[in-house]
């Protein structure tokens, strides 16, 4: 967006101008993000309510200890740290894209938008792997005196408390809310990342076609950036609630 010279005695709220010196699109995006924050807030508060009302919640260090191509190595939270790093790094490249947009540097915007898109897709790929690994897993669970092999799904949780069975410690079924909330909330977040990637791809194409150069400003990149940073910020909370606590 073109920068505006701010006069000393401007009456911002007197009409005929935006009181925030921002276009309607940006104001709208901020209000949308506020609204979306309430959606995630409701999800996370529901999660907290249920999680702290049941016993034997799964220990994230046990559940999330796998890494692609690492076999059965016990690497607690290593993979999710990588995912988080990728997503946060894509926020950095987004900042750089917005920065290049301010300088009307089409090539720079293209480069950094592409990196941001790659970051987003990489994150989604990681999430797909993690989900697959959880769902397809085989864990011994003692059900009605029989050993069964369970993955983690929305209806099955093999991470309950352990009991002695035939001389070895075996897990019992844990609270099924675990899978529901984990897949529900990370899925909803993943859906946001996916929308963000689609938006970024559209922005990339529009940049490539020179639409923003014709328009004289790269504000659309800025708005897509606001959304992207929001999605990252939400991930920080999701990460905190599901992996760290």
């Amino acid at each position: 967006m073109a920068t505006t010279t701010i006069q000393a005695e401007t009456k911002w709220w007197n009409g005929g101008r935006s009181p925030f010196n921002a276009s309607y699109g940006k104001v709208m995006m901020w209000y949308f993000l506020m609204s979306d924050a309430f959606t995630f807030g409701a999800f996370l508060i529901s999660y907290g309510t249920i999680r702290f009302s049941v016993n034997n919640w799964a220990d994230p260090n046990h559940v999330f200890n796998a890494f692609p191509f690492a076999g059965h190595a016990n690497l607690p939270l290593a993979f999710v740290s990588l995912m988080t790093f990728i997503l946060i790094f894509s926020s950095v490249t987004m900042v750089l894209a917005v920065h290049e947009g301010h300088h009307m540097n089409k090539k720079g915007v293209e480069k950094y938008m592409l990196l941001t898109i790659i970051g987003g897709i990489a994150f989604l790929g990681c999430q797909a792997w993690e989900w697959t690994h959880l769902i397809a897993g085989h864990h011994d669970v003692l059900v009605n005196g029989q050993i069964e092999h369970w993955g983690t799904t929305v209806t099955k949780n093999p991470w309950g408390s352990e009991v002695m069975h035939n001389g070895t410690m075996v897990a019992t079924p844990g609270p099924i809310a675990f899978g529901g909330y984990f897949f529900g909330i990370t899925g909803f977040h993943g859906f946001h990342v996916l929308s963000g990637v689609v938006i970024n791809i559209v922005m990339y194409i529009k940049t490539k076609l020179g639409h923003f150069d014709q328009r004289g400003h790269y504000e659309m990149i800025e708005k897509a950036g606001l959304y992207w940073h929001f999605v990252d910020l939400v991930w920080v909370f999701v990460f905190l609630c599901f992996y760290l606590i």
Partner: protein
Amino acid sequence: MSSEAISHGTQAHAMHDDHHDHHHHETFITKYVFSQDHKMIAKQFLVTGIIWAIIGGLFSVIFRLQLGYPESTFPWLEDFLGHWAQGGKLKPEFYYALVTMHGTILVFFVLTAGLSGTFANFLIPLQIGARDMASPLLNMLSYWFFFIASIIMFASLFVQTGPASGGWTIYPPLSALGEASSGSKIGMDLWLVSMAMFIVSSLLGGLNYITTILNMRTKGMSMTRMPLTMWGLFFTAVLGVLSFPVLLSGAILLLFDRNLGTSFYLSDIVVAGKILPNEGGSAILFQHLFWFLGHPEVYIILLPAMSMASEILSVNSRKPIFGYMAMVGSIFAITILAFLVWAHHMFVTGLNPFLGSFFVLLTLLIAVPSAIKVFNWLTTLWRGNIRFTPGMMFAIGFVSLFISGGLTGIFLGNSSLDIHLHDTYFVVAHFHIVMGVASFFGMFAGVYHWFPKMFGRYLNNTLAYIHFWVTIIGAYLIFWPMHYEGFAGMPRRYYDYSNWESFKMFGGLNEFISFVAMIVFAVQLLFVFNFFYSIFKGRKVKSQNPWGSNTLEWTTPINPGHGNWPGEIPEVHRWPYDYSKDGKDFIPQDVPVGEDESKH
């Protein structure tokens, strides 16, 4: 827009500029169907809302037949409802479906979309002096998402197992388990999907209303020079944007419970002797999520009605609104408090009484801004030069109903009294008067007052006065006796009270209520006739400002085109309530302040 405004970089594209081509050729499709003109979108919302109101009202007449005449049969009902009314007697399952759909339709489709969709769209650009909404495209999408939601909800009326029937609050487990009742099957899924579409519509609309009011006010239109309608609609949009997403979360989790086997809301349930595998969930959690929307929703419905009543009362009393800043402060206070009182719907769920006492306190605090508003309306009327136009009659009716219904809220907001009154007809009476009928009166006031601006014609006054008197007397006759029934402990949502010794005595009263309800419904059809007849055949508006009003919408041509003002947008020099000032009847907002003019 003046040339100096364009020099502000952000404004050049933030405001809709004069380059807007007002004369380009418009086809039927772009003018009436996929219109991006806020005035046409408003009319689309209004007409869709009217159709829904007829359907929702008709449902109430049908279930009132059952309540009023539980022993009679109505063979014509079978022709109309098929197997749902075999032998002319409504089936219990369908009775619940009708009650549920009546609530859903009137709360969401009529009094949310029909009310703010119509008046926020219509009035915001006209009263703040803008060519259109911030984003006409999103505005159009807002209507069409509402349309899709309407179609899905309408379709759910025709599925074999019937529409949702767990009450408009869709509490689980009734709503979460398909086997719980016939209405909990596909009808419930359609309900949830329809509401998701509705929430998208409300979000797109709300974002537009907020940004338009913040960003697009014409020169001189500072926030405190806005008519109170703008303040009301602004905070309505804020409420919607921040509370509907929580319902969305709740609905998504409910959809998962229904279709993916999760247990967010379910735990230890036995259906027909079979133990369900669900464990660990909480049905109370849903109630929290629902009422976090559900209570602000009350104000989403009320604030537009309140603020339109404020405007109409002032114009037709020929007096400035009393306590403008107090009104704005009250609207703001109500908005904040609306988010902090949801658990007063849940006093009997086993809520910790200590926590309950906080919710009692915050709930009763709402009485303060509400009372301030009532006093300001009354003092605005006080010694005014009152013109009893139909709009004015309905605005006064609104104040009356708001007082009557508001007072009973003080009873219900008290957690100990609520133990007795919860889920009785007292609650039904309370919310129908204060939020249902009162909001309808605000809406009618708005329609009668702004109809000349919408269609360039007047509504018929004789029909309007009949409509007013029958509706207000009827509303009191219907809902006043319900307080009495509620005090006596008569629970709501029962299909037939005649089997209870203690409620048998209300048989006559129930019959009376049903009888009045039918008359009131018939009179609403008279209004609908008046509305559609007057669009084409009503008396034409001859003057630009028929009510002698100060606000900017009356500075546009009688039939404003897309863009609203043919020339430049007028600049604003004063607040909108300069009535009976310095010997002048009224001084519109675009008239510059004279040198020797007194301060208001």
